[in-house]
């Protein structure tokens, strides 16, 4: 049997700054893992055709991370996705870095796994790692309905980079966690989003991403959770994890850009079409949809869905695991080092929203236990920016409608609000009232059918589907009209 491993020199194939060429143990582990990763990519990565050529054989204008220098860390070029150079890149070492928080605050940051925290650390890495391939799996069919080559390229860019983020976590598992780590690395490739037998670990990563509006919502909301988690892990006293996450954040920014501009362009297309057709009423759904755009109430429903699913990813508001991980110095808070406190939280409290006697109130709980709540609050704040921008597009077109984030207790399965029936504007109602209004809160089957019919692949360079506006500029030094995905010149 000939495998890629027989003839490939991984130390040069894999862009890295971890001394891969000299690390025989790691090389051996990766030689075993890499072919399985490629199998997974071919099996679960983007599927579909452009001009009868499978996506996996097309040239895609992709950026590849090749170094960790601030300028020039990425290089753009046409790449076939299976040839993408998934690298192992960590932010540069900070000399003299110390554990920034928790019990070990001020001690030198760990360069190897502390035995006492092996299980906790491994679990943090496995959970983070599990989300990366999951989103690739969730999004694998979207290329078939891409509204432009520009968007198709963005999708594939997000996909290969999620693949790289999986690599980053697998590197940590294989380099630092011995046999257990290698096994977990393989498990990451065996689980499948939405598979009843081997589901991904977190609920939101087993939901479908059925269409492009969902994709943009996902990259805006759910990847932003990813960002918050990475920000928290980037603070870690386990230095290799911190450095890995700091570099991942550079790529993650693009994913959120895709989401923010994607939803924005859809909103803009709708608002402009309404203005051009002289429709003032955003609830005049039939007429709006007949313009080939997505009505704003449906966009709000999608927003409600993705926002609420994503809030569940933060876990229980009060969490022992989060407290343990913070105190141990493994997972910090958003912008930990910029916070002005003792970074140990031993006596302090944090206000957590709870339902008390039928009303939402802030209740002070020990700050160590409230870390998930705090990270979620930071997240909600971080979500506001994009929503404000989207509303500007609506206002600019003279349409009277405002997109809003639903109440944090709306449609929750995990934590303090699980099992409650709360409307998007934060009223607690009984289940039958809620169910009766469900179709105004969350996307319906009819919405889904409408969107399915609307979304058709557009493959002419510079052309865009009716329901999404042109972006302001292109990407990777190219114009909007550039042929971002093309059939290779020679077979």
């Amino acid at each position, binding site marked *: 049997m000939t495998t890629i491993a027989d003839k490939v020199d991984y130390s040069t194939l894999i862009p890295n700054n971890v001394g891969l060429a000299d690390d025989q143990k790691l090389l051996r582990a990766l030689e075993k893992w890499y072919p399985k990763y490629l199998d997974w990519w071919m099996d679960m990565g983007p599927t579909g055709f452009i001009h009868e050529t499978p996506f996996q054989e097309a040239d895609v204008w992709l950026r590849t991370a090749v170094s960790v220098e601030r300028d020039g860390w990425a290089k753009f070029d046409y790449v076939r996705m299976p040839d993408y150079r998934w690298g192992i890149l960590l932010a540069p070492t900070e000399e003299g870095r110390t554990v920034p928080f928790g*019990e070990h605050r001020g001690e030198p940051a760990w360069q190897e796994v502390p035995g006492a925290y092996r*299980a906790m650390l*491994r*679990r943090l890495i496995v959970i983070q790692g599990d989300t990366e391939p999951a989103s690739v799996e969730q999004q694998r069919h979207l290329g078939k309905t891409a509204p432009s080559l520009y968007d198709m390229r963005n999708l594939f860019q997000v996909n290969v980079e999620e693949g790289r983020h999986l690599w980053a976590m697998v590197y940590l598992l294989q380099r630092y966690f011995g046999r257990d780590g290698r096994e977990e690395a393989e*498990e990451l490739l*065996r*689980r499948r989003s939405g598979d*009843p*037998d*081997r*589901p991904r*670990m977190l609920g939101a990563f087993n939901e479908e991403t059925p269409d492009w509006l969902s994709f943009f919502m996902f990259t805006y909301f759910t990847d932003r959770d990813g960002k918050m988690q990475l920000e928290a892990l980037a603070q870690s006293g386990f230095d290799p994890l911190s450095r890995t996450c700091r570099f991942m954040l550079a790529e993650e920014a693009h994913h959120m850009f895709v989401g923010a501009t994607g939803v924005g362009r859809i909103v803009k297309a709708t608002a402009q079409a309404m203005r051009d057709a002289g429709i003032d009423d955003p609830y005049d759904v039939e007429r709006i949809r007949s313009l080939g755009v997505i009505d704003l109430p449906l966009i709000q429903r999608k927003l409600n869905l993705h926002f609420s699913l994503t809030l569940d990813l933060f876990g229980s508001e009060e969490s*022992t695991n*989060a*407290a*343990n991980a*913070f*105190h*141990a110095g493994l997972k910090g808070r958003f912008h930990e080092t910029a916070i002005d406190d003792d970074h140990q939280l*031993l006596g302090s409290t944090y206000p957590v929203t709870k339902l008390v006697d039928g009303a939402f109130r802030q209740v002070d709980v*020990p700050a*160590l*236990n409230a870390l998930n709540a705090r990270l979620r609050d930071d997240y909600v704040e971080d979500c506001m920016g994009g929503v404000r921008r989207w509303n500007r597009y609506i206002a600019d077109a003279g349409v009277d409608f405002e997109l809003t984030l639903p109440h944090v207790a709306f449609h929750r399965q995990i934590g303090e609000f699980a099992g409650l029936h709360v409307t998007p504007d934060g009223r607690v109602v009984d289940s039958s009232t809620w169910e009766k209004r469900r179709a105004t809160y969350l996307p319906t089957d009819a919405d889904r059918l409408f969107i399915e019919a609307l979304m058709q692949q557009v493959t002419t360079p510079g052309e865009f589907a009716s329901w999404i506006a042109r972006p302001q500029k292109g990407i990777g030094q190219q114009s909007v009209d550039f042929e971002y995905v093309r059939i290779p010149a020679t077979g």
Partner: protein
Amino acid sequence: MNVDFRTHPDRYRHWRLTIDGEIARLGMDVDEAGGLGPWELKMNSYDLGVDIELYDAVQRLRFEHPEVKAVVIESLKERIFCAGANIRMLGCSTHPEKVNFCKFTNETRNGIEDASRNSGQRYLAALNGSAAGGGYELALATDHIVLVDDGTATVALPEVPLLGVLPGTGGLTRLVDKRFVRRDLADVFSTVEEGVKGERAVAWRLVDEVAPTSRFAETVAARLHDLAATSDRPSEGPGIELTPLERETSDTTITYPHLRVTLDRGLRTATIVVEGPTQGPPTGPAAAVELGARFWPLAMTRALDDAILHLRTNERDIGTWLLKTEGDPEIVAAHDAFLLDHLDHWAIREIVLYLKRTLRRIDETSRSIFTLVEPGSCFVGALAELLFAADRSYMLDGTFDGIDEPEAKLRLTGANFGPLTMDNHLTRLATRFWGRDDALSHAASLVGKELDAVEAHDAELVTFAYDDIDWDDELRIALEERASFSPDALTGMEQNLRFPGPETMETKIFGRLTAWQNWIFTRPNASGPDGALQRYGTGLRPDFNRNRT
């Protein structure tokens, strides 16, 4: 807090009991807000209240459902089987509360194994998600463990690495003594907080099989079918309904039909009087089933069981129990013979097994047990076991002056030589005469004979035989002396003396695992202000005293 052990499926908050022909399903769906104290029972974690319902369900399955041959314990929550005993509950419980809780949960799990082994009601654990700590220990008490193989679900005993205590509900013992997990793998398993999943869990013998989610239900159904096929229970009823147990309490008395307890708070004693039947046994097993919960052996055993649990949990200052009987020895003898004659009938077998388990509770009770044989008593056969369960016994030689009652007699029957074994799997007499076969055979030669105090004393069946001149003084002094000793030392002494002879899984669970656990529970490393139990959930790590003791 006064704990009542009496409940009924209609009142369960944490379990759903459903019967479908020969299969019963015990679905665990713990109500987070249903704890006995200020703790949330998250992720199917349990406290004493949850386990009281489990005990009730196991008992009812045995008596009310003769047709049930296999029982599956499953979770009604998604992707979580059971997270074990609630840690916050352990954190805020006093030492006696923790110990009592563990003892009761251990007895319930032993009872599940007793049903499997002896009454043809086989148990299966269907782990649809992770089973940790006491959750996995519950599974260990069953005959067959199926674990879902979804890449995430694990079985785990995280007590040592996470909580600084032991898996004390039989976990460590059953790993090596029941499932024959190699001791080095058991060491590894018991120190990885995240547990073991999938095929490795099978390879290490931690579970019997794994099944993917899509085939989980069918795998469980097939195994239940296989287990049911091994059962000798009748395929149809009627069963015996465990009607509500009547009990009247005052500050110093607890009264059931066939049993009464009188508390002396000054001397810290409880006098438990078991009352014999007033009518002869029914004509046959079917008639006994018809009598149901009113059938004297069952009614008496239920009362004794509840009294033990009540006194243990709610009357912890009462350090000495005085056991007495009262009734017509001939009618007791007739019942004793009736039970022995019909051991092959499911219901009679069930009653005798229940009596066995209840007597075992006495053996495991951390109270001094004295049995008193006086005129008017009926220590015959099974009731004579109350003598041999005691730490010491007193028999009146002759009669009390001025009271016109014949002198007390003692009578051994086959019941003392077979079915009512202790946790060491020996009869109480074999235990009493451990290493002395001649004394045991001599006792066997006395079966059926009425023994007066001198004869009983000569046969070494009672500790002391006093006449009425000495009786009151001797007893008073003995009780006052007993009450003056350290209760801790007494418990330790009694537990060491009650179980001569070989170890079994049960004696190891109570004598080794529980004893170590109880020691660890009192250590600052577990229960001190900086100990693991107190700090659990705060995010802070325990501050251990590193001395190995």
